[in-house]
């Protein structure tokens, strides 16, 4: 199949933010310098006022479309109606990047509103690759698959996650959206070294990085990836490690709950940009 790799326009700014309706007016009025805006695909699949705003901002900013509910890891068929809506949105928005998750979220007609972990087995690898191929064929372009933040692992998982993801890349030609907060959260929850995880990913496949906040659950020692706070220092450190390994790729500040003022979000994006610039500078010096 034809695989189209979208590139960011030549720009010195590659850090972006997630677009939330709370911030639309502020972004429109102040036109902050940002590499791109990212939206959750499912929030724009109807004729809504929000879609109008997105199409309007699309004129000034590259957009990345991030799916959260296609459920590529389902043991069932993927929902063709939903895939059709996804395709229609991509055709309308013409995003620079399209991504989904290494996860599942539906069973029958029920949508469990979460990115649930897969067992990493040969069975799930075959199925997942099949669904990624179906998505790429429907959209007529390469998609990026994001590594999940996990709170559990299955006993019968037999393939390390980074190896599983790498195999998906080799079999389907997809790219990787490396969420360094997710790597950090999973590493803490299971006691592995996040650097070893990054080192196991294929450099050439990394097309985007996500950076976000997390918190510790109240009742149990599990880190929760809630995208609801400033980015923790160890996650910034991991971002720098990722930049060193993968080179400068578009990075997104993901903030989806407890939304802050736009200025705080922009401040995080500026910091991500400074770190990326420093890394590039160190490379060329």
């Amino acid at each position, binding site marked *: 199949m034809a695989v189209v790799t979208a590139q960011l326009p030549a720009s010195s700014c590659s850090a972006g933010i997630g677009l939330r309706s709370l911030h639309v007016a502020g972004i429109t009025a102040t036109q902050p310098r940002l590499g791109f805006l990212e939206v959750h695909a499912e929030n724009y699949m109807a*004729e809504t006022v929000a879609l109008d705003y997105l199409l309007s901002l699309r004129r000034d900013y590259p957009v990345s479309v991030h799916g959260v509910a296609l459920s590529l890891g389902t043991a069932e068929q993927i929902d063709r109606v939903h895939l059709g809506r996804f395709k229609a949105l991509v055709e309308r928005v013409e995003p620079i990047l399209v991504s989904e998750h290494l996860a599942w979220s539906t069973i029958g007609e029920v*949508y469990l509103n*979460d990115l649930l972990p897969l067992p990493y087995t040969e069975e799930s690898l075959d199925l997942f690759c099949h669904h990624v191929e179906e998505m790429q064929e429907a959209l007529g372009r390469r998609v990026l698959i994001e590594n999940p933040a996990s709170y559990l692992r299955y006993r019968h998982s037999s393939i390390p996650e980074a190896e599983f993801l790498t195999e998906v890349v080799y079999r389907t030609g997809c790219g990787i959206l490396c969420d360094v907060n997710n790597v950090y959260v999973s590493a803490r929850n299971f006691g592995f070294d996040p650097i070893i995880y990054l080192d196991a990913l294929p450099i050439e496949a990394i097309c985007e990085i996500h950076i976000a906040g997390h918190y510790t659950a109240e009742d149990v020692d599990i880190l929760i990836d809630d995208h609801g706070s400033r980015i923790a220092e160890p996650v910034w450190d991991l971002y720098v490690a990722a930049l060193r390994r993968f080179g400068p790729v578009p990075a997104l500040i993901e903030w989806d709950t407890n939304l802050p003022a736009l200025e705080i979000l922009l401040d995080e994006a500026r910091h991500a940009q400074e770190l990326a610039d420093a890394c590039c500078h160190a490379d060329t010096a």
Partner: protein
Amino acid sequence: MRKNSPMPAAMPTLRELQRQVHQAVLGGDTAEIVAAIRGDGLDPAARIGTYRNHFFATLGGLLQVTFPVVCRLVDERFFAYAAHEYVRQHPPRSRRLVEYGADFADFLADFEPCESLPYLADVARFEWALNIAASVREAAPLPPQALAEVPTSEAAYLVLRLQPSLSYVISPWPIDAIWQANKKSEVPSVDLASGDARLEIRRTGDAVAWLRLDPATFAFRTALAGGLVLAAAMTAATAQSPTFDLATAIEQIFAGGFAVAYELSSEQKSFQPHPVDLARKEVS
């Protein structure tokens, strides 16, 4: 290269495993899934519990944002309990969460612990309508001249498609007054005996507005919104008020920009209509 972890006696298929996770996330039995989870230093039940908590917390939070006055009327703790039961019994069927909560009002109507607040479900219907109007884009209104092409003999079978942001809510209680009172920090008292409410809710420009309608107009517009032919809508209106004036009613529909398209229904031709004189409703 592949690591062999200790496996449970029978390795579940992916389909089977997902069924077990689904059951546990919805608050059902966790024994099967717990047996399939590695402890990694913690109780496996706590690990799957994290997903269950997230599921109920995020959807409960979404309902609270969508139905703030319902929440205020019952207090946050009771709302969380009702929302939890709703989420358990009615997990999302759509991947577009903006659609979640469409039948929350129906759930509340049958939810026994809410019996002492008979108006609660109708307030929820009103809040859902406000929510729709706030998110849905207005479509381009149909110009009144568009109907000039409709042959008089077919006028009775005309179906007008109305603005997608429009909703009609009827209640024996003054739900709009209850809603308004509960948006204030100090809630003024509302006379529950002050009568029923027939409300039209829609988006106008960047704002959401609602209007109380008289019984005949409400019946007419509700019938149109339900996809009934003009003649059937007129019958519904006339049942409320024998003096209902169709020409004025249609004028108002077009003046308000309510109609966005029309079609002639062949399915509803079995309906025996009142004679409909389209010529009378020409709007300049």
